[in-house]
């Protein structure tokens, strides 16, 4: 069990990249809205799209760790 848990924990480290990526994207979006408040709608939509795509890596990690926890089960 202990090694299974360790493997799941390592798999979920992919969240690191997604966190950094979404942070950068949101920061840039804030700058963009500050510079051009009238384009806020379009920027928000693009931001959500970008967040969804960069979040995918974290979700793959999560899915792999869920698989390890509940399917492999050591």
């Amino acid at each position: 069990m202990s090694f299974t848990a360790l493997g799941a924990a390592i798999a979920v480290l992919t969240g690191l990249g997604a966190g950094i990526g979404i942070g950068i994207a949101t920061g840039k979006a804030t700058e963009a809205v500050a510079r051009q408040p009238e384009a806020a709608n379009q920027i928000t939509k693009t931001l959500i799209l970008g967040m969804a795509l960069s979040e995918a890596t974290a979700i793959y990690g999560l899915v792999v760790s869920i698989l390890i926890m509940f399917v492999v089960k050591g």
Partner: protein
Amino acid sequence: MSNQNVTEAENSHQGNAAEAVAGIDPDGLSALEAVATSHEASTGAADHSEGGISEHLDHAVTVREVFQIPVGNSTIPITETVVVSWVIMAVLIIVAKIFTKKLETFPGKVQNFIEAVVDGINSLCKDILGHHWKHFSAYFGTVILFLGIANTIALLEIPWLKPPTKNINVTAALAIMTILLVLGSQIRFKKVSGMIKSWFEPNPIMFPFHLMDYIIRPLSLCLRLFGNIFGAFIMMELVIIASQKLLLPPIFSLYFDIFDGLLQAFVFVFLSMLYVGEAIE
């Protein structure tokens, strides 16, 4: 096997200890722990030991079979996911029937709200799909309403109403429907020749990547929705265990159930629209 027996023991409120002990697999928990788990679960409090939490989670994420439909020699198993989906569909259909019965030129409060929802979906479609929006807005509206309710249904706190999207089969089916819609609309609006031509744009090297899109896009749609909802579901279970149902669950539920659920419903439909829009442009 051990899971099933623990479940049974939990169901009968004064869990028969002897039954639980008899059903424990040798590789599972020790008999003593299992009795403690089933007893504590039956009194409403969760076990704090490590085995208790993993048993609890295992029990929470298991998709149980409700009944079977016999077809010829074999049977079709109907799981609780399917039943919950049916309930959501029934609610949506009934609500739609009731609220569109008496439509008036000068709308009341309810009709105003319904019109705002429909108008929002339509304008989103118009933004992304251009002048073909009318063919797609009904489908995307249905999906976003279904997903919106399905993702947040855990708020009702009814034990058998778990979000159906935490089952990967539901999200896989929705993702396959999206990619079939992309293929269908490509054939409908660009004809087969235009579809094949679009695979070789901007240059023939891109051909394998265009084909890979048809597999990777539904896969990522499916896994994104499933991962988010399943992750949120497990987080909520852990929060409920950790806080003993005191104070914390509603706060976390605001993020995990409402915000994340609605955002993921929107993201799923938004990405589907983008794929369709790209296919027919």
